[in-house]
Structure formats: C-alpha cells, structure tokens
C-alpha cells in the first residue's frame, strides 16, 4: 500500500512543503506537477539520459530516480528554473545562448544542470582549473571519476555544448 509523505524542501531558495500520496513518488513529478517547474524533464525514467537532472544539496541527482522518501526535510533542490532570469542569466545560461548550444534544446536542462554540478563540484573539491574539452566530454559521457551519469543529445549540438560549458567555467571558477 502506498504510504503518504510530507516534506519541507528548499526549492531554488524558496521553502516549499509538498505532500505525496505515495512516498516512493520520484522528485521529478513533484517538481514538474506540484511546483510547476518545467526545467527538469522526463526523458527515460531510469537515469540514462539526463533530462531530469537537478542538484540536491549541491550534488547531481537524476530526479526521475530520486524517491521523495530519500529526501530529508530542508533538502536544498536547485533546478534550471532557479538559475537565472532573462535579465540576469547564470553564466552557463549565457554561455549556452552565446554558443547557440541547442537545437530542440530539450536536453538543455540536462547539460546545464550537469555542468553546474560538475564545475561546482570541482571548485568545492579545491580544483579551480577550467576543465579541458576532454574532461568535459568524459564527464558528459559518464567516463569521469566524478560521475557515471550519461548526458544524451540527439540533435547533434555536442561541440557547442562543450564550448559553452568551458566558456562558462572560465567565469565560474574565479
């Protein structure tokens, strides 16, 4: 039988209390359907593509495989919706615009949120070097020591995505 659950989360800096009828409901559906956040998207439901990527307490999570009962009260959730605005885009968002790093751009959430977790993770670990092109590609292919998650793009914007992440990193690591 489904077990209900209520959690108070900090979502993009705002405190939100959410209730679900089934405590195994994945965070993705709560973000999209209860909180109206369209950044994270459904792509595969099994953590293989990256569309649903968010940060939980600064750590990259695939929200399609993050059940609500694994979150603690006060958990800090960051989604693409909370990064920046048209007037004040986040450096990653600005770099993606500058490089025109998307076609359909359904994967933009995946790439930007993954890159955010990647770059901030490096900086927090004391590595403030701008990642090389190969390091970015390896990260997005799940071949880095930091993460085995894969980030998929179907339209073929890969070279622009890599350039955008590198340019944003130049700003973010300083």
């Amino acid at each position, binding site marked *: 039988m489904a077990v209900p659950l209520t959690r108070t989360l900090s979502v993009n800096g705002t405190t939100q209390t959410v209730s679900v009828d089934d405590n195994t409901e994945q965070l993705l559906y709560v973000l999209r359907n209860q909180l109206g956040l369209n950044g994270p998207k*459904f792509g595969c439901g099994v953590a293989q593509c990256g569309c649903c990527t968010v940060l939980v307490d600064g750590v990259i999570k695939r929200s399609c495989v993050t059940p609500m009962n694994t979150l603690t009260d006060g958990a800090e959730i960051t989604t693409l919706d909370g990064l920046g605005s048209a007037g004040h885009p986040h450096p990653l968002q600005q770099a993606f615009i500058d490089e025109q790093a998307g076609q359909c751009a359904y994967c933009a959430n995946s790439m930007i949120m993954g890159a955010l977790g990647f770059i901030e993770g490096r900086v927090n670990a004391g590595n403030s070097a701008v990642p090389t092109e190969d390091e970015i590609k390896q990260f*997005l292919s799940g071949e880095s020591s930091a993460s085995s998650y894969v980030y998929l793009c179907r339209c073929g914007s890969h*070279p622009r995505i890599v350039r955008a992440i590198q340019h944003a990193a130049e700003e973010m690591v300083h």
Partner: protein
Amino acid sequence: MARTMSRRQFFSRAGTLAVAFSLAPTLARSFPADVKAAGASADLAIDSWLVIGPDNRVTIYSGKVELGTGVQTALTQIVAEELYLTIDQISFVQGDTSQTPGDKGYTAGSQTIQSEGPKLRIAAATAFQALLKLASQQIGVSTHALRAQNGQIGIGHNLNRARTYGQLIGQQQIQLTSDATVAVKDPADYTVVGTPLPRVDLPDKFLATFTYMQDVKVDGMLHARVVRPAGRNATFVSFDESLCTAVPGFVQVVQQDNFVGVVANDEWAAIQAAKALHVTWQQGAPLVAEADLPQALRDPANIYQTNPTQAPVGDVDSALAGASVTLEADYFTPFQMHASIGPSCGVADVRGTPDPTTGIQATVWSGTQGVYPLQGAIAGLLGISTSAVRVIYVEAAGCYGHNGADDVAADAALLSQAVGKPVRVQWMRQDEHGWEPLGPAMAHTLRGGLDANGGVVAWDHTVWTPSHSGRPGGKQGNLLAGQETGALPNALGSPIGTGTRNQPVNYAFPNNRVTENAVANFAMASGVTSSPLTYSLPRTSSLRSLGGFSNSFANESFMDELAAKAGADPFAFRMGYLSDPRAIAVMQAMANKAGLSHAKPPAQNGMLSGRGISYLQYENKLAYVAAAAEVQVNPTTGTVQVTRVVVAHDCGQIINPDGLMHQIEGNVIQAVSRTLKEQVTFDANRVTSVVWASNSFFPGKQYSILNFTEVPTVEVVLIDQPTLAPWGAGEPTIEVVPSAIGNAIFDAAGIRLRTIPFTPDQVLAALNP
C-alpha cells in the same frame, strides 16, 4: 496560448494590412466558406497570411512549424529584410487549425526554407510596396524619394517626415494578395538575411521559460499512460485491474478493442497504475525474423511493386557483359529510430458536444509535423466532424521526421473522449523506443562494370525498401490508436521520391539503371490493406532523409569499390564523372579543407588510420554536399572512432550562416551515431531494443546513440550563392556521412563494411575472416 481568431477576422479588424499568400504550390482546392465570404478571390489558394498591425508588429500565420531546427528564425529574417524591420517585431502563429489557414501538409523533408522562404519574401515585399505607396500619398513625394528603416518610411536617408507603418495604415483595412511580380530587395543590399542572428527561441529554452509540448497543462487535466499490446499483431483478451485500485489517484482503465490506457488524477499515479494493470494478450502472426531481413526484403512474396526509379540510360546488361571488370555487392541498413530525447506527449480535451460558439468539440495539443492531416485523423478516430477538431501545434523534443507525436495525440484524444475530461499522455521511454514509427531497413544490390582503362561503363542499383510514408494523412488508420481500435492504414504507395531518394546518382555514366522494389510491412490484397491488419515487418514511416541515408551509403560506398578496383584515387575517380560547376566547387572545397592532397593523419597508438570521402546532390537537384571522414580503427577491439568530419555545402542563398552551420553539424553527428551504433532489434512479436543502455537492471537489448567522447570534430565550409534560390539543409548532409566513414574504414583497414551499423563485432569479423 494565443487567442483565437477566425479567418474572417483577418479581414475585418480595423487598422491592418494583410497579405494573403500560398505556401503550398500544388494546392487546387476550394476556399473555406468564411474566407470566400470575406471577399477573397476564389482563384487564389490562400493558406497563409502576413498581417501588419497598428503597432507595426508583423504576424505571420502559417501552418509551418518550428521543429527545433531554427527555421522560425530564418523565416523571420526573410520577412524582416523585405519590410525593414528588426526580427523582434515579427512573430509567428504556427500550426493551429483554428488560426492558420489552409491544408498545408507537413513540415518535413528539408523543405521549409526552400519552399516557404521565397514565398514569404514576396508576401513581405508586396506589403512593403503597398506601404511605400501609402507613404508617397500621405507624405506627398514620389516613392523614389522615400527610404525605410525600423518600421518607418520617410524622405531620404534621414527619414524626414517619417511615418510608422501603423500610422500609414491608420484605420484602413487593406487586403492584398501576394504579387509574384513585386520588386524585392537586391541581395547586395541585405542587412539581415545572410547574417548569423541568434535563434529567437533558444534563450527561453535555456532559462526554462519555454513551453514544450511536454510542459502543456490544461485546467482539470488528468494524466494517462497507454499499455500497448504485447506484440505488433497481438489481440486483447482480458485485463485485471485489481492492483490498480490500490494506487492513490487511479481513475479508470479505458479499453477499446486492442487499445488500453490507464487514467489517473496525477502523473505518478498513472505510471503506477499502468504498471499495476495486468493485461492478457493473444499473440498474433510472427514478424519476419530479424536475422533474415536482408533476404526477406528481397523475397518476391513480400514485394508489392517493382519499377524503374528513373528512365534507364543506355543498355546496362550489354555493357556489363562487355565490361573488362565487373563488380557486384549487397548493402544493408537496419531499422532505425528517431530516438527523440523527450518521449512523445499529447494533450486532448474532448467534450461530449461541440462548443456552441466555436463548434469545436475536441482540442488537441500536439508536436505533430502537420496539424491538418492530424485533425482529420483525430476526427475519424473520435467519430466527429473534422471541423469540430482543433489541433494546436506545440514544439516538442527534437523531431527528425514522423515520430510518435501524432500517435500520442491520438492516445490522449481517445482517453479524453472516454473519461470526459482533458487528458495528458506522455509515452514512457519503452513506449517511444518500442512503438515509434521506424525508419525502414533497406537492402541494395549494386553492379558495376569498368572498361580496360578503369572507366565506368555500367551502373546498376536495385533497392528493396519498406514504406517511408506512414503519416496520418487525415486517416485514423494511420495512427496507432486507430489501428488498435480496428481502423486500417492506407494501402502502401509508391516509394518513388521517398524510399528512392538519392538512389539515382549524379555521375554521368553511359549505361545506368536504377530500380526500386517496394516491400510490404503488412498484408495487402489487390492494393488494399487486408483486414485484420497483420504486420510482417515493424511499422515504418519517415526518418530524416528517408531512403537517402541508405541509398547514398550504398552508392558512395560502391563508388569507392569501383575506384579501388580501377586502382584510381577516390576523389579523382568521382571528379571524372562530374561536370556541374557547383558540384566541382563543393568537391574542391571539401578536398582543400580536408587536406586530401596531404597524407592522411598518422595512426594513433596501435590503431589503423583512414580517410574516406563521399559526394551527393540532395534529391539529385538541390543542395550539393561533399564530405570527408577520418577514422581510427582499433584492430584489437574492433572499435571505430570517427575523429574528424569535413563537409563542404552549397544550398544556394544562405539565410543564416550560423543556423545553417548548426544544421550541418547536427546532421554529421546524428549520421555518425546511426552509422556506428544504431539498430532496432525485434523478435517474433515486438521491438526489443527499448532502453538507451543495457545493464543488470535492464538486461534487454539497447538502442544507444552517440556519447560526447564519440563525437568527431566537425568542420564545415559553406558556399554562399546570394543571388540564387535558398535550398533546405535539414537532411542533405546526413546522407553523405555513412559512406565517408565506410570508405575511411576501407582506407584504414582494407575491409569493406556493407552493413550498418559498423559495430566492433562486424569490424572484427571482417578483420579476421
């Protein structure tokens, strides 16, 4: 959501200038009554309007849709150019059967820029000339003295006594029809067309403020998931919903014939209830065994049509008989997927009765490529009149042809009709991988003859292809939900122009024969679909470049085989049969950029290095494309890494060079993915490759696409022809890449791969025969 406006209102709003024009060249049809009533000329097949409002804003009402390719930005540039506006003053209302006129078919086939661009240019120029005349009258000087800038017309370069377009129009209702003889701007004076303007849609996409189809929400909306049959030919026996009722939010199971869906109050509940539903199916006739495909496609029992693809040149049989050397080879490409990153999604609001004001009974939001063909199909599915259905286009995740967008909209419509409330359906990943219309597997036999000097005296290409045309076409039987509820799809038609795209070559051979064989996916009798619908091959439809991907792979690989047999350099060999200066120019540009006159790149540690080239003219009459690919082949693991792809591209006038470059890059990368990795697998009943990556949790077959570390460096040379017609670039490049890679592998390792994908297993088998 944009507000509704009837066609009549286009012509009755005060203070507008409206230009009616047609974007569909072949339309010969009667007018909607309300347009006729508004006084439009009955001999003009209007299907689009360009409207200038009192605020100087231009709105284009067009059935063409943005599919994630940047087409909207490019078309906007064309309008901005002729009307002396900035692109932010122009907006598009796209693909809404209640707002965009006509019966415009589909946004597909790399057609938008080349078919719409010139017509939009003329419509905008027609509007501008009318504004110029108004300005001449109102300012009191001749049109020659007037200049325009940023939506104003005034005298001389300083725009003295300037009036805005809105002021010029005032309270008038001006109705014009597009004038094909109107003066258009000299390309030498262009300031907007030909510049790399950033795409208008991308900032919202990166800021999470863009509404994709997957983000559409309607008041009172329920969520649903479909439970597709256990096999392509399976029939429904029974269902047991006892476990569904334990899911909080579960509403009901909807079952009609072989269509089964689960509706719930929220999305998570719909997913859980669909998992909890136990359905019993009776499997039907088996599909052709996947391993037998190359033979099965050639089996006369499965062929419903054989025709020359084009008029034969010379006498191929005699030429082959008299040739010094003959060569024959079979090629094969498997079923492949669109594999959109976001599974298809549709929302439908089907009421019990039509709205008394609008007459609309069913409103459907869809990422379809054609709102009108889907409108008719949905009407048939629901058993209501076409005019009672409104289909509104909303851009979904990347569309590379006819994917699941139409089918999922039909699912939503059927479920909404059953529960009497708006319903959103998003396919799960296994639905998308398992049920989207596939790009067909294709088989080819090529024969060639060389004379004593190594010249080609005969060329003979025979193709066997299932259908590339399964779009809704106004018929519910072409939708999955329609088929599951007993409707039959259209009988399969001729593959000429679809399955045969780029099957002919543009090389001048003295004896040349090209033949198509159309292979049936399902049983037909006397040219009509047999009932009950029984598939022998997976369902297929249009995937980027249609038959061109496979045909060009076969042609340009075999061209390389002939060159090798003749002992000729592949570049010089091809150039010997090309005379069109534009063809020669793209080949030279590719050769220069790729450095063909220099040695190929050195082999990396333990690898084999190779370089291969390819050439084609899209649809034999449009864009010219030449490509070079560099590969490193690992002889131990069989892995092929494509390290660099160079493309030279001439698609006529360039509207937006950065947008064009991005399309070409995307084509290359998608092509590398399809060439190295992609193959739909299926068993006797159904598609089995339903995950991106197999692992211990998902032990089934995978359908995986390129990772970042597998992406080559892409270098593009654009050849602009500012005074010539613009041609599409959405598909040409994807066709040249597979053969360039195959030719590079041959150059590296001396093995000729004739079956896609070039997996490590295939490479190792060829290396160690």
